[in-house]
């Protein structure tokens, strides 16, 4: 970190003094730019929120509307303090952005979370040149290379069919925001059968539907007949439901999990999933590396995740690299601040 850097880690996110705003703060601050609505990026309690227009309904569903939310069109700059801020599609989930900040101290880009693979629920990542690229690094090792999404969807469909043949429920665990809707949208092109949902997924599936994303029809498990055994049916549930008493509704089920983490066999086996489907809303290693080139940045700072490997790899290729630990600021600031209401 340098003293004249445009951004610095603070409050679990990044602080820009020139513009007096925070990006994805985890603690309440005055003015927040929120890249997307996942809980490790969007928290309630701040004074003011700036986000992509598309993200407004999702953000409201997640953190409520207690404070003013300002929606911005992608690619349309707005002024904050002495900076000019522009949001561009990040391709991570519906409404997700990366943030470009132009200032006297140069042009900085903050990735939020992003991916480069096609996703029917959101526009693709849009690269723009920056001087400094702050990149997420959730899957920052070369063992993480994603298979083509259509191939993974084929595998999911085949598994569902196999479960149907065996008269078993197919319970597919996935994150309630983003992944669940992506799967429902991907499947919509292949079948028209209804899929059962865990209750926690409903508000977000509704929000996507209202925003015009085409998905398979869905029904709530809680509204199923008492005698329903879900044999041969596909059920989507958040990972937190695994191992809960709720699972008793699905006797003899086969359990799958859709996540980039499923690329590693041990991850799947120790969680006790029968099937792991490798599909992620994050960039894999090749995408992380290629995006740095696409952004034409000469300085790269890894945030979110274990970025040391990527920093080391890019450093050896002549780029200026650093790893910032945003979480560490949380522990520091927790000591200095009163307990946050969030």
């Amino acid at each position, binding site marked *: 970190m340098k003293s004249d850097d445009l951004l610095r880690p603070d409050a679990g996110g990044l602080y820009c003094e020139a513009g007096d705003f925070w990006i994805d703060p985890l603690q309440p601050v005055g003015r927040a730019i929120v890249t997307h609505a996942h809980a490790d990026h969007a928290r309630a309690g701040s004074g003011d929120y700036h986000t992509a227009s598309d993200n407004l309904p999702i953000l409201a569903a997640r953190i409520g509307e207690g404070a003013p939310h300002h929606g911005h069109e992608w690619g349309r700059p707005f002024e904050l303090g002495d900076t000019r801020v522009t949001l561009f599609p990040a391709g991570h989930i519906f409404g997700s952005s990366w943030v470009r900040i132009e200032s006297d101290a140069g042009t900085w880009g903050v990735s939020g979370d992003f991916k480069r693979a096609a996703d029917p629920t959101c526009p693709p990542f849009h690269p723009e040149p920056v001087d400094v690229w702050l990149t997420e690094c959730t899957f920052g*090792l*070369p*063992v993480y*290379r994603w298979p083509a999404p259509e191939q993974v969807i084929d595998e999911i469909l085949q598994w569902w069919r196999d479960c149907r043949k065996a008269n078993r429920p197919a319970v597919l665990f996935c994150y309630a925001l983003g992944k669940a809707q992506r799967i429902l949208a991907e499947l919509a092109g292949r079948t028209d059968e209804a899929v059962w949902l865990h209750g926690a997924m409903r508000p977000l599936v509704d929000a996507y539907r209202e925003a015009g994303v085409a998905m398979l029809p869905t029904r709530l498990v809680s509204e199923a007949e008492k005698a329903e055994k879900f044999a041969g049916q596909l059920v989507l549930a958040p990972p937190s439901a695994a191992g809960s008493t709720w699972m008793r509704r699905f006797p003899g089920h*086969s359990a799958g999990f859709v996540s980039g983490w499923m*690329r*590693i*066999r*041990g*991850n799947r*086996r*120790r969680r*006790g*999933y*029968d*099937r792991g489907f490798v599909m992620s809303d994050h960039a894999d290693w090749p995408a992380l590396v290629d995006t740095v080139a696409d952004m034409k940045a000469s300085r790269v700072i890894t945030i979110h995740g274990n970025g*040391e*490997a990527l920093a*080391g*790899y890019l450093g*050896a290729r002549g780029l200026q690299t650093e790893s910032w630990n945003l*979480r560490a600021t949380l*522990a520091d600031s927790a000591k200095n601040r009163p307990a946050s209401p969030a």
Partner: protein
Amino acid sequence: MKRFVRLFEALDRTTGTNAKVSAMVEYFREAEPEDAAWAVYFLTGQRLKRLVGTRELREWTGEFSGLPSWLVEDSYEHVGDLAETMALLAPEPDIAPAELPALHHMVEKCIRPLSAMTDEQRRTAVFEQWRHLPGTARFLYNKMITGALRVGVSKRLVTRALAELAGVDPGLTAHRLMGDWQPTPENFRRLLTGEGDHDHATPYPFFLASPLEAEPSTLGSAADWRAEWKWDGIRAQLIRRADETILWSRGEERLDGRFPEIEQAAAGLPDGTVIDGEIMAWRGGGRDEGPLPFSVLQTRIGRKKPGARTLERAPAVLLAFDLLEYQGRDLRACPLDRRLEIMSDMVASAGDAIRISESVAFDRWDELPALRASSRERGVEGLMLKRADSPYRVGRKRGDWWKWKVDPYTFDGILLYAQPGHGRRSGLFTDYTFAVHSGDDLVPVAKAYSGLKQDEIDELDRWIRANTRERFGPVRSVEPVHVFELAFEGIARSGRHKSGIALRFPRIHRWRRDLGVGDADRLEDLERLLADPSAD
């Protein structure tokens, strides 16, 4: 190998044992016997002699994938399995091969010859496979050239599948699979049909006792039960057939030559004899009374041909506690009392190094707790309780044989180092090193990696990542904050450890969140147990 790849995927894609068994039955039914024999070999946990070293594989992986070696290392540390890391790092072949070679062809023609090649030839041969094999096949190839193929099936499960296909009792299949089973098509057919000559070296499947969790009195009438000491040695089966002595460990390894005094003593046994017992280090080589600590026996374990000095310092005996074959007749269906009766007459004809493990006499259940409590001073692990009329069964069957072990020692240690685990625990910090106080310092005394629940492992993993002090390769030192209660079976002096002591079989009992670092034990507390003659 296409079928074997499919079998592996089927086994890997279910956690249910019935599904695994039926996948294996289907495979064994359809596969060519040449291939099925190798599948049995690998699935039952046998391994080829390591053909490619891990260091070579790491170097080649870097070279093949074009990644720097430190990044291969980081990836390996994260994945926890080298064969898998390689398969994940290297780009997939552009064109998938139309057909994969047969499993037996792959093993016999492509893998086994690696051992006779020069380094350069081996590298070329391995790269050639990597260029052609897709996904799972490449992973399995890597597994086969580096060692064991662990796919979440036990030998017992493989046995069950083969027995189901053969339509016989799994005990019979287990017997056919015992010993140094060779993966030939003839042997595979014999597994299913039983036809052909039985190798005279083939041992019987071991009968394993289950831990007794309730009081012995719950077993019924004391008169129906026999008690024996539970010896702390190496379980072994001694075979005397065709004028030859063969000694098998429970892990089905031949111990021939390692315990010459026992083999010598066995020469006096009649032909067609099979004894089940425990190898122990014994004062005076069987003439005197009394076991020597396990740490003494340990000096014998790795020695293929022990020298005179070793034999004198650590004389070994076989404590015989069951007779499985007499005059060439399988006695396993006879009642225990009857087997022991025949054995006691017979062992008299053997040398000193084969002794009867005498029964512990008792009339009433309430005599046993005091006897069990005396285990440590006698140098035993506790008591065995066996039903007097029980047959000798196959594997771990509950009901007839129970082990009633003495409670382990425990101490409170401080978490000092952690490193990522392997296999199921890959990528998580699950291998821990614990320390105790020594003066003002902390000195490591034990490594342990089991005994925590998954949510505790997850919590500790997060904490370790956030509280790392230093890194030494994959090992991280952490703030000394957390205290754990550890159990262990014995303690011995050790010149190889900084602490000067070595603990036997340490494992985590529980996380003592209620204790601070100051409450943890001191090295002196452990050293005191060294003075205790009952601790080994």
